[in-house]
């Protein structure tokens, strides 16, 4: 009896926090999404599906988000995995800590400032100027989907590197010796042992990056120059510029639904790959 009371007491702060900061706003957004824009902007009460019917008007934002978020996640994964592998398996312990710190160092500066740095790098006097030297004229990088892709991969890479690094770090190296002993050449051992056993890290990193990319608005705004719009940008526009809160809320609800579907698929994948429990293989 006292135990359950203590449990309730300990869970109260988190419960109140989630109720106030997560459920309440979500409820408000949901209610707003069925309302209307008032004449002077903001929200006017009502019950209509008009806003949802209107969603195709923001099709481009959804399309950009739903292509660049997965592509960005995949690109980050392809870059992060070899890096994490190198850090976890190949680097001598002496250098490991320093290199790991170097992976986080960019986080010490605001993403805003770093994204502005990319404006210079991708702009006329940056990489395109270098490409001109080797004869490639008139390459436009800034304000393209490519620029946004570069920006998001750059910004979120550490979030992908660390979960994979942790998974590879705790991988029992003797399993690879066992594989070799049983006749497996190194590259096949990677595919059969290392890769499947690092899947939890891959899935965690991918989900982390993907969810954050779905809500991203800063990098597309800076490097996309208003041409490559994400749902996040649409929300900023709808709530702050055109002050159409009802439609903005409908867009927000649609984004949440898309995310829920993604998380659902993710959980299924985890169940399949996560079948290997950590406490086993080690002993």
């Amino acid at each position: 009896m006292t135990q359950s009371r203590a449990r309730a007491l300990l869970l109260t702060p988190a419960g109140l926090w989630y109720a106030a900061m997560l459920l309440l706003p979500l409820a408000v957004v949901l209610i707003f999404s069925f309302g209307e824009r008032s004449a002077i902007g903001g929200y006017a009460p009502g019950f209509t599906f008009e806003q949802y019917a209107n969603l195709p008007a923001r099709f481009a934002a959804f399309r950009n988000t739903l292509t660049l978020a997965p592509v960005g996640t995949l690109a980050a994964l392809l870059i992060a995995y070899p890096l994490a592998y190198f850090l976890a398996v190949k680097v001598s312990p002496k250098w490991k800590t320093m290199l790991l710190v170097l992976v986080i160092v960019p986080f010490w500066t605001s993403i805003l400032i770093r994204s502005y740095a990319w404006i210079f790098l991708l702009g006329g006097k940056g990489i395109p100027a270098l490409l001109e030297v080797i004869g490639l004229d008139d390459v436009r990088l800034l304000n393209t989907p490519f620029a946004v892709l570069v920006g998001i991969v750059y910004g979120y890479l550490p979030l992908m590197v660390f979960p994979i690094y942790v998974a590879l770090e705790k991988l029992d190296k003797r399993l690879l010796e066992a594989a070799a002993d049983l006749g497996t050449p190194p590259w096949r051992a990677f595919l059969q042992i290392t890769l499947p056993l690092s899947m939890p890290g891959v899935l965690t990193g991918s989900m982390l990056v993907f969810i954050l990319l779905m809500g991203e608005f800063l990098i597309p705004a800076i490097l996309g120059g208003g041409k490559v719009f994400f749902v996040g940008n649409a929300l900023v526009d709808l709530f702050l510029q055109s002050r159409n809160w009802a439609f903005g809320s409908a867009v927000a609800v649609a984004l949440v639904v898309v995310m829920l579907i993604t998380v659902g698929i993710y959980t299924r994948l985890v169940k399949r790959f996560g079948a290997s429990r950590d406490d086993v293989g080690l002993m």
Partner: protein
Amino acid sequence: MTDATTTHVPAPEAVAEFVGATKRFGDVLAADRIDLRIRRGEFLSFLGPSGCGKTTALRMLAGFESPTEGEVLIDGRDVSAVPAHKRPVNMVFQHYALFPHMTVAQNVGYGLRQRRPRLPKREIELKVAKALATVRLADFGPRRIWEMSGGQQQRVALARAIVNEPKILLLDEPMAALDAKLRGEMQRELLELQRSLGITFVLVTHDQEEALAMSDRICIMGKGRIAQVGTPQELYDRPRSRYVADFVGKANIVSGQITGRQGGLAQAVLGNGVKVVLRDEPGDDRTTTEIAVRPEALGLAARDSAVPAGTAVVPARVTHRTFLGDHTEYLLAADGLGQMQVNVPRQAERALGGHDVGALVHVLWPEGTGLVLAVDD
């Protein structure tokens, strides 16, 4: 079997051979000029304390390390440059190293699935089933690794290795993680398995009892070198050095002067002037040597009791007495020789009476007891 790269003529009965095999890790000499022939079908143990080079020797055989100098031969062929995945040997790892993302059957079938050209699926299934039956885990194929107990995991590791029918089965301290009772059971099972399969087993262990109980031959190692190779009985009865005498069983080591040698026996005067007759090492002509004598080869008697003819006596005082059931262990301060140990069987003690701590006694040293150690170390 005939290989142009090998100048060494292999012994036909040798399934593997170390020829001057040396392994350096930076400045550390892990294995130092190891010369050893492993006979086909034998159960050989590498025995020694940690850091003695036994694991390095095993890993050179497995292919995880290649010798800095010298050669490792399998079936007469130099395999020093052959990577682990191409060697016809399999290992049971110390902590089993089972693949946690595979079922028991998938673990056992792993080596078979690596064969190129591929084996038919049906054949793999049959062999896996047979291997699992051999280690008495017939119904456990679909289980996950974490559902298995420590002893069961070890059987899985064993099945995973033997299913490939290796030329040599390597066992790296396989019993270290098991409790004492399970260890004894497993030792017997391993022996039976080795006999029924006829595969050469090479075991690495630091447990002398385990090595004595299981091995046809034991290779005792120290500081990267082979100290002595022999059957368990040879090593116990005829240790060549103080190191071996100390490592296999217990031994009293005393120094003495050899005064005469004849017919495999040597007359010696111990440091305290007592004259004894020992077993001699043939071909030895040193006069000052170390002498090893097992605690159970000596006897104890009260000072006033009669001494059988031909038995030398060393005056001593009892300092510790430990009753161990089947025998009693006496630690004594022997005049002029320092500490000695004598084990008296329960039956002898019951017949002749025990000795209290502080009692003045005679250590009885029968003729032909004790051994001249061939090597100083």
